[in-house]
Structures are given as structure tokens and as C-alpha cells.
């Protein structure tokens, strides 16, 4: 790791309880191979103890530290400083979009968690069902018995990046639809009706920004499209069932 140090200006979005957001700038000596979250934590530790930000695991398993870094949704604990700025340049961190701001960089993702709960998105699932790109059937027999934490770390980046989620709070959102897609969809069940409603898959307008920002291999866009095909198949076969 390079020993050269960079001097950057960290512009932190500040917003205390209802006032208009404004930026505070901090001059910081950083190591380019550090993460953006380390820089934010150093600002809190040494420069301004009033800075509020959410963070827990620091290695992309908890989903707490999502922020806008130079306007793009990033998981700051795994985003190298050298990938988002240069020596002597600025680095802007802001809270995620489409969530109410608790304070400064911390947002309240209660709406995301409660919807994941309602659609029954699983937090742990059998290993063969966990990855979208590898169908369950392609997993070796002995892997069937293992259970692991899901890919989705519920970090909210996809909800922040989604243009549909930006327009109204009712849209379930990419992460929720992706969580729903991972479960087998039963025709006319509550999750099916939630998915097949105007606030479900039909509010997605294929911007693919969710997959673009997802740090965790979930590929929500692919899952939403798969969910659509499932719903269309169910609806079409529903016709013949009735006939």
C-alpha cells in the first residue's frame, strides 16, 4: 500500500433537525487506500463531534453506511478514497436520497425495513437459493444443506438511486421487490398481490440504476424483470385456470 498521503477537502452535508442542509468542509490528510468511511469517522473523532453518521460493521455486511459520495450512491466502508477523488481535490458526502434525514449523514430507513418485513424477504436462506446468477439446480447436492445470510444487506442504495422511488413513497422499491423475488411467488398470495400492484413491479421503468449501485451482488433489476415474467406467466395461466 502506497505510503504517500493525500490532502483532501471532505465536504460533509450537515443538517440538524429540520434546518436546511449546508456543507462543512474539513481539510484531511488521508491515505488513498483508506475507505471514505474512515475519513468520515476521523472527522467525527478529531474535528467535529457533532457529525452524525450511521456505521457498524465496516466491511459491507450490515448496510448502515450508505451515502452519496460525489453524488453517487456508495457503501462508504468499501469505497476506496483513491477511487472517488484525487490528491488535493474535494470529496463530498451527503445522506442517501428518498429517506428522511435523521441528522447530517444519517437517514431513517425504517420504510425499507418495514416493507422487507411485510413482503417476507428472508435474511438467511439456503446457499443454492442465495445467488441470482447461479440457478439453484446448478449447485452440488451437498451444498443444499448450508444456510447463509442473504446477499441483500438492506443498505438502501438502490432505493436512493431509483427514479421511481424518488417520486413517491408508495413504490415498494428495488430491494423489496428483489427480496420478494427470492421467495417462490404463490399466485394470489399477499406478496404476489403486492408485487403485481401499481406500487409493485409495474412502477419500475427499467432505469437499471439499482443494479448499477448495488454493492452486494443482488442485481435487483434482473430480479424485478424475473418477477415480472413470473407474474405474467401466473396471470396468463390464471386465465386458463378460470376458463
Amino acid at each position, binding site marked *: 500500500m502506497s505510503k504517500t498521503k493525500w490532502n483532501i477537502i471532505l465536504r460533509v452535508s450537515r443538517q440538524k433537525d429540520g434546518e436546511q442542509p449546508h456543507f462543512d468542509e474539513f481539510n484531511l490528510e488521508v491515505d488513498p487506500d483508506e475507505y471514505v468511511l474512515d475519513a468520515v469517522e476521523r472527522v467525527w473523532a478529531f474535528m467535529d463531534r457533532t457529525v452524525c453518521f450511521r456505521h457498524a460493521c465496516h466491511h459491507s455486511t450490515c448496510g448502515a453506511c450508505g451515502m452519496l459520495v460525489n453524488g453517487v450512491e456508495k457503501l462508504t466502508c468499501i469505497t476506496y478514497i483513491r477511487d472517488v477523488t484525487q490528491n488535493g481535490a474535494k470529496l463530498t458526502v451527503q445522506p442517501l436520497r428518498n429517506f428522511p434525514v435523521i441528522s447530517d449523514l444519517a437517514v431513517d430507513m425504517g420504510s425499507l425495513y418495514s*416493507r422487507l418485513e411485510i413482503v417476507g424477504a428472508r435474511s438467511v436462506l439456503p446457499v443454492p437459493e442465495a445467488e441470482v446468477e447461479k440457478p439453484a439446480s446448478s449447485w452440488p447436492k451437498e451444498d443444499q444443506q448450508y444456510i447463509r445470510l442473504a446477499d441483500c444487506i438492506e443498505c438502501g442504495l438502490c432505493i436512493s438511486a431509483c427514479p421511481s422511488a424518488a417520486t413517491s413513497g408508495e413504490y415498494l422499491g428495488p430491494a423489496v421487490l428483489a427480496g420478494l423475488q427470492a421467495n417462490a411467488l404463490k399466485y394470489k398470495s399477499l406478496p404476489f*398481490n*403486492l408485487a403485481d400492484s*401499481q*406500487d409493485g413491479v*409495474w*412502477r419500475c421503468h427499467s432505469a437499471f440504476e439499482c443494479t448499477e449501485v448495488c454493492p452486494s451482488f443482488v442485481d435487483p433489476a434482473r430480479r424485478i424483470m424475473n418477477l415480472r415474467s413470473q407474474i405474467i406467466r401466473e396471470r396468463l395461466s390464471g386465465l386458463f385456470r378460470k376458463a
Partner: protein
Amino acid sequence: MSTIIQNISKPRAGESTWLWLIKILTGGLLVILLLVHLIVNHFVVEGGLMTYANVVAYFQNPWIVFMEICFLATVVSHSLIALRSILLDMNPAPNVLNIINWVLGVVGVGAVVYGVWLALTIASK
């Protein structure tokens, strides 16, 4: 369980699968119809329908009349269904949504009826 489940658990009469399928099918159809429309009406037909006489002559063939009406119905349904899904982004309350459905329905049917009338009047000239 919580307020959340009330307002999103009842799948509001929204753009269900059928509306979406119509939108995507008419969309696919339109890609062909639009190209045909552009090329035939303005490049193939002599005079490019630039004069009243050209148009009347063009509309004497009943097939053309039928084709233009189909094209109109397709493009009107596609655009109004899509406009409706854009309006859904305004998160309209159920009663407002009903009004939107009605208005778009009336506008759509009205446009097609108007188109048929127009095509027939030209054809009869």
C-alpha cells in the same frame, strides 16, 4: 401490523399486468407501424401527401384507411397507457386515479372516433 400494511397491502386498481402487456405489445407494433408510416406517407407516396389532392387520392384505397385507423388506435392506446403510468408517479389517491382512468379513456376513445370520422370523410371526398 402497521400503517404501512394498510396503504400498500390493498393492491390499488393500478396498472396491472394487462395494461402493461398492452403497452409493451402496442409498443412493439408501433416500431414497425411508425417506420412504415414515415416512409410510406412521406417518401413512397408521390408528392408525400403534401397537397390536399394527394391525401384524398391516397385515402381512396380502403386498405390505407383501415391501416391508418389501426395505426391511430395503437398509438393512442400506447401513449395514453404510458401517460397513465407516468401520472401514477404522482401517487394519486384511489378516487383521483379513477378520474384519471376515466379522462384518459374518454380522450382515447374520442381520438379514435375522431380519427375514423376524419378518415372516412377524406375517403368519401
